[in-house]
């Protein structure tokens, strides 16, 4: 395993270098706020943003690669683990899985619920339901979305998706990368927690958005300040959930492992970590939700692009149907992200699929 260890540490080092380089490179980047006029002006923004993000992207690509490698090595070690065999055994063909996921009674009920809301929305004006009747009806919003000057046809909208998702992803990944190890460390070591937890507790109640003015002032670019605020949104939840997850790992489980001959390292990697995993996933799911809330507000204030910014722009232009389009987009984006996290969680904790 020495080779594997060497590979692991090499990757960690590389990650650190990437983070450093990425940070300085990114700090230098100024966004092309005024792209050269052209047919695909907005697409140009998106491409520029992605180019700027490529170093930044190294931050999460490198750890992802490291995790993947560790996972592969682990798998070779545990080749014959019954748990893994079991997980593989239960995996059905993709077609079957998709069919089962789409055509089942739960999906149907969900669709019915969405449909009901859509109907109420559409009929609110004719029926005169208070407050809701002032929202532009569904048909109007849809036609606004698809009409000649509708967002559907504009690069700005799709570039906004890309940029917003990048921001979410960067902030969220940072929160996971920092928050999970920190939560685990605090959960395990009373000393570490005693020293630094009070500071954390003072910062925690401050809403992420309250950090925004300070972040804009402190961070080299507006982009970084948005990501920082998004990071804060997910970070606190993830840390708190991870700590509680460690505390909730049954003490007798650790004792049983000791009694069966496990060493301290085994206890951490094979008992505490898998035992905390469900809580980490819960934290990540909640954190992802907060991330979207924060994103929009941050983009409204500090951003010049993204879905949140588009929504704000539409409001200032008095285009209420388009505001609703923006809102719906955020809703869908958030739902997709949550679904992805949930799905990952299910795959990471196959033993909980039973419940």
């Amino acid at each position: 395993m020495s080779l594997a260890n060497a590979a692991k540490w090499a990757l960690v080092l590389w990650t650190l270098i990437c983070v450093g380089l990425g940070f300085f490179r990114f700090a230098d980047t100024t966004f092309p706020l005024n792209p050269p006029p052209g047919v695909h002006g907005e697409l140009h923004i998106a491409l520029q943003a992605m180019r700027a993000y490529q170093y930044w992207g190294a931050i999460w690509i490198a750890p992802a690669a490291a995790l993947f490698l560790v996972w592969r090595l682990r798998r070779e070690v545990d080749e014959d683990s019954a748990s893994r065999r079991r997980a593989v055994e239960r995996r059905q063909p993709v077609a079957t899985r998709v069919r089962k996921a789409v055509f089942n009674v739960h999906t149907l009920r969900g669709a019915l619920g969405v449909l009901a809301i859509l109907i109420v929305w559409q009929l609110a004006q004719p029926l005169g339901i208070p407050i809701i009747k002032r929202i532009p009806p569904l048909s109007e919003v849809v036609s606004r979305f698809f009409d000649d000057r509708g967002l559907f046809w504009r690069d700005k909208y799709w570039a906004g998706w890309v940029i917003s998702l990048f921001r979410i992803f960067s902030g969220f990944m940072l929160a996971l990368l920092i928050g999970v190890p920190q939560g685990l460390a605090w959960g395990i070591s009373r000393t570490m927690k005693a020293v630094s937890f009070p500071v954390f507790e003072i910062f925690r109640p401050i809403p992420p958005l309250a950090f925004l003015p300070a972040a804009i002032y402190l961070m080299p670019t507006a982009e970084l300040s948005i990501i920082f605020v998004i990071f804060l949104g997910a970070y606190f939840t993830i840390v708190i959930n991870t700590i509680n997850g460690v505390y909730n790992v049954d003490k007798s489980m650790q004792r049983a492992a000791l009694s069966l001959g496990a060493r301290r390292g085994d206890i951490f990697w094979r008992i505490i970590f898998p035992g905390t995993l469900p809580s980490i996933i819960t934290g990540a799911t909640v954190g992802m939700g907060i991330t979207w809330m924060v994103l929009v507000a941050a983009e409204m204030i500090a951003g010049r692009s993204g879905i949140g910014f588009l929504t704000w722009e539409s409001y200032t232009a008095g285009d209420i149907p388009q505001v609703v389009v923006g809102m719906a987009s955020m809703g869908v984006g958030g739902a997709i992200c949550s679904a992805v996290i949930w799905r990952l969680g299910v795959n990471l904790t196959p033993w909980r699929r039973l419940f």
Partner: protein
Amino acid sequence: MQALLDFLGRVEIFKDLGRETLEKIATVCEEKRLPRGTIVYRTGETPDYFYILKQGAVSHPGLLGARGSSDGLARTPGDLFGLAAVAEDMRRRVFTVECLEDTTVYAINGARLREIVKLDPSTGYAVMQRFAGLMAKAEGFVPARTGALSIRNAGKIYDPEGVHVIAVEDCSVEVPPGGICVVVGPSGCGKTTLLNTIAGFDNLTTGEIHLDGDLIAAPGRALKPGPDRIVVFQQGALFPWKTVLDNVTYGPVIQGKMSRKESEGHARGLMEKVGLAGIESQYPGEISSGMRRRVEIVRALINDPKILLLDEPFRALDALTKSVMHEYLLELYDLSHKTIFFITHDLEEAIFLADVVVIMTTRPGRVKKLISVDLPRPRTYRMLTSKRFLAFKQETIEGVHEEALKAFEAGERELA
């Protein structure tokens, strides 16, 4: 007389003996009728007699399970039991026997038989050898000659500088190898503390604990928890993220004692033997709580511990499952004869399982009374209503009730 001679002649072990010797044996034979349920060689009796089955059926509980249930029985006329009575100075090694139906036996004084057979000029020596061989074979099926637990004046004080809670004080218990020691006592009397110190999770403030002569706990000295003293916890501690098979193989694999393949083969074999086949690839969350307890006990046994520490393992089970689990545990016990240190609140459970019941006083926990339960093994649920069982229960209740009352009045919180 002639019939007896013919019968003796047909007994496998006596063939080749001269007619004169057989006649001599016949004179010392006493025919005995043993009604159903009679227990021969009860603990504490001196087993002078060796028996030849004439008719009926008896069980050899000590051998049950180890040889498969049918082999623990003597049914055919001419079967022998109490071989150790024939050997010199081995009388403590006979196995308890229970008559399953009305039985007729020939009882022969072991020492006399030995003298007579030895005198046979031609084959006496060979017959004695045969006796020795048979006995050795039976002994081979009764493993576990390790796991002698000795707790001497053990004491534990929590927070000696501050609150000074005396959890256990001057507690001394001896458990012979392969014995089942059940500790009962009111909540908070330090039973679990005692178990934790044996397991190595906690240390003692006075006294010492030995396992097979090795010091495992003394003030300022505690042997790390290890696979020679495995604990089964009251809430259950199977790892939910591992399948049943991975849980069972966890010990051997993490200790590096076996490769994963090897240990899985071993685990499958063991699980099949104890009736757990077919659930290997299930997660613990998918099986019943009774099943989980069984898996947990198997997970402990696969490590071949010297002693099994059970901390109220059946507390969370319903009464019906519990009674089945008791028989199951005893079945496993017969397979391995591990020393068992068992903690419980349930007196019936205690008596049903135990060789010796230790009643502890309310805090500070001291040994109030030791009751040795000499009910024969294997024990079945029918015994729960037998007179002897009830007598033991009475004795235990009297011991415990007083303490429970004291604990109740003191209103103390249970100490973990």
